[in-house]
């Protein structure tokens, strides 16, 4: 009888430890997801400044500029709606248009000398990097959480406590994996 009691106590302690660890990891995942949104919003705010700075110099690149503004607007609208896959797609398209914009700006030496443009370019580059790193960190958190769910003692408790695997952030469309094509 006593042995049974001791076993029960030990098992419940183990269950407690595992549960707490899983909760911490899951919250880390949720936080990491929210952090991506922070960076995306930052990019949305920066882009109008970029376009203003560039407009004077790149008067005949109207198509490229309009593509950027349109992509940004779409991304803002879709992220407000809340659909995760659609948001990811729109944000990827926005990244593509920004890349084209910077590629085209290489043709304008006056623009490159403008210190405002250089500062903005650094800011946009940094923002893109931060978005990438935020996604990377999100994926790393998901990996840690999923691993913690699947290793041996934890997987027994995971189903009891109703923990589920989280999804990785992945690129769904093949064309987004390619570098942007810029033709003059």
């Amino acid at each position: 009888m006593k042995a049974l009691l001791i076993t029960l106590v030990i098992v419940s302690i183990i269950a407690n430890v595992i549960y707490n660890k899983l909760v911490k990891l899951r919250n880390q995942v949720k936080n990491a997801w929210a952090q991506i949104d922070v960076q995306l919003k930052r990019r949305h705010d920066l882009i109008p400044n970029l376009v203003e700075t560039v407009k004077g110099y790149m008067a005949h690149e109207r198509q490229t500029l309009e593509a950027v503004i349109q992509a940004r607007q779409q991304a803002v609208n879709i992220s407000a709606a809340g659909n995760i896959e659609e948001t990811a797609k729109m944000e990827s398209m926005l990244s593509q248009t920004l890349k084209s914009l910077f590629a085209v700006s290489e043709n304008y030496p006056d623009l490159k000398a403008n210190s405002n443009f250089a500062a903005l370019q650094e800011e946009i580059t940094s923002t893109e990097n931060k978005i990438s790193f935020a996604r990377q960190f999100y994926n790393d958190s998901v990996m840690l959480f999923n691993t913690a769910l699947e290793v041996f003692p934890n997987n027994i408790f995971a189903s009891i406590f109703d923990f589920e695997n989280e999804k990785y952030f992945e690129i769904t469309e093949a064309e987004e994996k390619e570098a942007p094509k810029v033709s003059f």
Partner: protein
Amino acid sequence: MWQQIDSNKRNSLILITVIAMIMFSVGYVLGEFFQSGDGILGVGIAAVIWIFMCITGFFFGGNIVLAFNNAKKIGPDDHKLLYNVVEEMKIASGLERMPDIYIINSPVPNAFATGRSPAKSAVAVTTKLLTLLNREELQGVIAHEISHIINRDTLYLTMAGIMIGVISLLADISLNGVLDIVGDAPVERTSSKDENSVVTIIFYVAGIILMLIAPLLGRLLYFAISRKREYLADACAVQFTRYPQGLAKALEKLAIGNYNIPRSFDKITSAMCIVNPLETTGKKKIFPDLLSSHPPIQDRIKILRSMLNGDLSSYDSAYSQVTKQDLNIETTPVSPVNIIQNAVQNQFSAVDNMRQTTNMIWAMNNYIFIECDCGTKLKIPPEYTDIEINCPHCSKAHYVS
């Protein structure tokens, strides 16, 4: 990543316990020498000294190192590039608080990290490093420093370093005293029992040997931990940036040698720098220095260059190949997705880089900036007291505010 930290925390604790045992043994032996039976008192005194020095080290240690190097703290607007690079690494590593960023005005390239916990940490970079490296290389270096912070290296190495200090202190001061006592002892303390005197003599001899060896042993352990930690920091840096070539290129640029910020680091405190400030040449030594706080830079570069992916297990296998030893990083597979990388690589221009850095230093030192109509930017030091100054190119007069 966190599992990584756990297992290495464990190993560090074990090694530090060993160093602590050495320290307490020295204290015990000392106590026994001065007053037989007072071994415990000796241990107590050693512990008190250590705790006192730890408190000083933890609460003021980081600030002392920074002040000693004349480091200036910068805000988000002082050097946008550096701030952005550090912020990106903060995001990639999940650090809870943005570290304080300091710049040291120095002609040698180096960087270091301090801080007893991720919640209170600092990163310092020299101006020469800023002008020497481009964005991705700088990012590799910063990732390495942030890895030190995340892996709590600053905490462990500070504690171990302080213990070494206590061991050396006790051993140095008391070795003379011990030899004095031993010189007189066998005659006076020999009791009627012969076995007793033999034991006593053995005890004294063992004690002297311990005093001589303990500091050396402690140092060997410390530098072994320190070297392994450097490799681990390299591995974690690659895990954060997913770009081993960045750090490899930075180390190649740094491998020329002579990173000594004069008189501001000693052997123990140099552990937190990216390259060993006490090393004067980057060439590979025939017999690697067991008392060096950093592994040979050529090895570090080789490992980074031979990695196929940017994760810990890749670093582990590259390390085994290059050094024919095991690093035993507890490796976990890295997330499988290739993420959209940087939008644009800024063109790296050494001149622009240098100009930006020196402008920032002058701004922090209260220089006055005046733009002339001919396009020249005048930078006037605070010592200039005249009302007017003439542009060196077009001779137009400007009012100095």
